[in-house]
């Protein structure tokens, strides 16, 4: 039993917000955008800023609380790239379960799409600079980042298991079908496998349409104790299981490019939640690239290692399929500001509350959000549920 401390079901996400637009641009940026997300998520919950006593940001544990005028008793600046917000769910739920804080807020905002047009410094997040190892041992070889790193993983998966470009493309196609149902998605036009395969080759074997978008985007979640959650505005979404594991920072240090540390984070989260695969109604899987989603499906155990290609081939991830995945349209078609993990959480919460409109998964009770940070480096899995 992995839940000796009794984290399961003790905390609930009670407010969410996210911002994205079909143009890829948002009007606000920086702190103003973060503040808008926090206000919206608190409104969603029916809580005030003064209720917040725990502040989470990906890399800025001091500046954000100061900006908000808060003196929190729990601060967390954990920055694991795209999975940061799954890790925040884990840390916040644990702290709340132990009574170390009561109301936690995590926020993310990045506007790379409009920053470029407006000549603003890109506040993409902490991935840039500072890593002497990568600057010394990887950068001289001209690998485009992060696409090249994921392309190496796809190359190995294809060589080892016979995975085809068509199978990877099917993931982009299924995800686009979901995006068609989301009015805020960046791209909603139907996509064919051929469209993916004839799009520009970026880093072989990954084409342009195997790669996520680069858009503005922002989001926030508010979490509190299950007890307090029951009196708030929205149905609580309980944190049932959480797990995080890392295996490397640079792709050249990844032990096996076909197997991520989700093989560790997933079972920890599932065991804590006490669920099995057939209990899962919705999968929110990081899709920085089509290969990312494929590896997560395998590493979470929805199919065997190496069988992800044939597994996705019938479109089961799309609308009407047996395994609804990335129902907001994903990083591939909805939004991807650089660290996408926040949107996995927000969509899972909306689905579990039954608020997802035309893309609602009927009877959605258990959702799994699994994030990937760095280059398949920092993997974090959350099991969320509409009841305990």
């Amino acid at each position: 039993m992995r839940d000796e401390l009794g984290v399961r079901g003790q905390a609930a996400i009670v407010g969410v917000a996210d911002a994205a637009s079909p143009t890829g641009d948002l009007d606000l940026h920086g702190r103003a955008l973060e503040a808008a997300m926090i206000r919206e998520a608190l409104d969603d919950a029916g809580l005030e800023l003064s209720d917040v006593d725990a502040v989470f940001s990906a890399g800025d544990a001091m500046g954000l609380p100061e900006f908000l005028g808060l003196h929190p008793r729990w601060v967390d600046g954990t920055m694991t790239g795209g999975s940061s917000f799954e890790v925040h769910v884990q840390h916040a739920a644990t702290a709340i379960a132990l009574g170390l804080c009561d109301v936690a807020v995590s926020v993310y905002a990045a506007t790379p799409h409009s920053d470029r047009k407006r000549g603003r410094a890109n506040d993409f997040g902490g991935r840039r600079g500072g890593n002497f190892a990568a600057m010394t041992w990887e950068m001289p070889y001209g690998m485009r980042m992060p696409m090249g790193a994921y392309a190496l993983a796809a190359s190995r998966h294809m060589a080892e298991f016979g995975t085809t470009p068509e199978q990877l493309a099917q993931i982009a196609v299924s995800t686009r079908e979901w995006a068609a149902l989301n009015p805020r998605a960046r791209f909603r036009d139907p996509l064919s496998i051929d469209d993916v395969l004839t799009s520009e080759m970026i880093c072989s074997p990954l084409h342009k349409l195997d790669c996520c978008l680069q858009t503005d985007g922002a989001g926030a979640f508010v979490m509190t104790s299950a007890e307090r959650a029951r009196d708030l505005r929205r149905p609580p979404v309980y944190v049932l299981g959480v797990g995080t594991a890392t295996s490397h920072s640079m792709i050249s240090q990844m032990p096996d490019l076909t197997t991520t540390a989700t093989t560790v984070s997933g079972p920890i989260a599932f065991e804590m939640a006490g669920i099995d695969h057939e209990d899962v109604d919705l999968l929110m899987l990081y899709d920085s690239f089509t290969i990312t989603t494929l590896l997560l499906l395998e590493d979470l155990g929805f199919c065997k290692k190496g069988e992800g290609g044939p597994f996705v081939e019938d479109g089961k991830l799309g609308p009407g399929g047996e395994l609804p995945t990335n129902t907001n349209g994903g990083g591939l078609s909805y939004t991807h500001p650089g660290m996408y993990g926040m949107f996995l959480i927000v969509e899972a919460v909306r689905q579990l509350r039954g608020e997802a409109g035309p893309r609602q998964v009927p009877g959605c009770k258990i959702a799994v959000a699994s994030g990937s940070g760095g280059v398949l480096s920092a993997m974090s899995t959350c099991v969320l549920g509409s009841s305990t």
Partner: protein
Amino acid sequence: MSAPAPGRYEPPVTDEAVPFWSATERRALMLPWCTTCEQPFWYPRPVCPRCLSPDIEWRPASGRGEVYAVSVMHRPAHPGMADRVPYPVALVDLDEGVRLLTNVVDVDAMQVHVGMQVELSWEPMSDGRNLPVFAPART
């Protein structure tokens, strides 16, 4: 041997890698070995990543290896490599058991494949160092 590539990004020399880069001036590929574990490791660190021992010895590598994974860049990651596209970036497993990110040179980019046997080659840098790259094995 490939032509000099003045445009390529040239890496900094960090303290722990001084012996590595010095050896490249005479085109020798040296690997850091932990004398406690009696195993090589990659990338160079001031201590062994298995046991944290600071007792490290630099030993020559065979220069032979196998492509573990490869991706062809269709646009350059650095302007200095624009004249090379498309070029392959590969992970190569050396016979000694360590894995390096590198380029495979002297071959059509599209011919580089997982499992390909490769051997060490060098590209001169502007300061007298040489950058280790790999070419298809001749034997």
